[in-house]
């Protein structure tokens, strides 16, 4: 019971952290910092979804052991993360409140599906983690290396700093991949 209460408090806290950079207080934090937008808010929205899924672990959908469900979850999570890494969408979010809400909702959903993948077999799990890591590394290097401002709403140095962060996330995921691989092979 205490564990559930703790998780609920954590969930609410993470939701607040995910939403707060989008609040006009008086200016949106995501408008002034690309790093906050991409390296803090987007992961927080996904993490909120993961926490929500662990609170809803009795849900029949989330406990389904069907390959098609895992594949759908993986595809949704992968495509929604990729979609919100595109510069055109980051710019759109800064000027359109509805687009911002859509971003938070789709990533929250991605987080819920992401959690579901941890019930899948090791091949699916490792495939997902590996492909996500590759995507982050590619986007990270691209954001770092290109000399063109990809986002109209952010300056070049902010873009490069974000690229460094995305690359770091990619390497962290690779580390996670190795840990999972070792754990699964021991089982």
């Amino acid at each position, binding site marked *: 019971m205490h564990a559930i209460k703790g998780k609920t408090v954590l969930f609410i806290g993470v939701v607040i952290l995910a939403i707060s950079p989008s609040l006009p207080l008086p*200016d949106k*934090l995501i*408008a*002034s910092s690309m790093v906050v937008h991409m390296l803090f808010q987007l992961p927080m929205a996904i993490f909120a979804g993961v926490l929500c899924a662990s609170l809803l672990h009795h849900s029949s959908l989330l406990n*389904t052991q*069907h390959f*098609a*469900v895992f*594949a*759908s979850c993986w*595809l*949704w999570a992968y*495509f*929604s993360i990729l*979609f919100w890494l*595109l*510069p*055109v*969408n980051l*710019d*759109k979010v*800064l*000027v359109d409140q509805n687009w911002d809400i859509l971003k938070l909702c789709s990533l929250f959903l991605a987080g819920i599906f992401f959690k579901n993948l941890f019930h899948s077999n090791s091949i699916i799990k490792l495939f997902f983690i590996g492909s996500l890591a590759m995507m982050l590394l590619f986007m990270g290097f691209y954001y770092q290396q290109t000399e*063109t*401002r*990809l*986002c*109209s*709403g*952010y*300056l070049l140095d902010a873009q490069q700093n974000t690229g460094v962060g995305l690359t770091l996330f990619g390497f962290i995921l690779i580390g996670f991949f190795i840990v999972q691989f070792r754990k699964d092979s021991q089982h």
Partner: protein
Amino acid sequence: MRSNQAFIKVSPFLVIAFWLVVFFSYTDGFKNFTQEAKRKTAIFQQQPDVAFLRVMDDAGNHTNLSVLAKSTNKTLIAEFIYTRCTTLCLSLGGIFQQVQTQILQRKLSQKVGLVSISFDVDYESQQTLKSYRNRMIAQAVVWDIVKMQDQVVLEEVKNKLGLVVIKDQQKNLIHNSAFLIINSSGKIVGIFEPAEISAAITLALKQTHSNLATHHL
């Protein structure tokens, strides 16, 4: 129960189809992955008239960009700036200074003009525009320094030309940068990145039917 199973089986394909449609439609057929690219494509296709871009110059005269282009019978190269900017606008201004020198040297001032348009409507005044002119050593015969008339114009420019202006926490304005080519009929015929200034000049000169001058530049 059976229909549920069938739905689950096709669900990965539905997710793929959904995201394909979203990506395809929002990137204009997997072509435009940045807002700038989308803006360029739209402007090249629509060639909008800039009569809505009402401005005030550093002498206090009110006009609009379309009238300015028609009355001077020049092709205009326009940029969006704000005069208290200490980053991007300075480099844009530097590029305009070089183009101004070229125009004066090649005696093209009757054919091609430059316009710096400030979007900082609340801050700018005749005085700030004048001081920007002095800082940039902008010659009146070539280079107009103007500000958008009011917030309504700014909103129209944002909607119609895709200008992005965002205030950050230090009250600086973050904005996108491009050179717009406005022909002597007051229509935008091209939009170029700062690095593509040569292409912008070439198009501007083509618009004046001065192919000879194009080779010189």
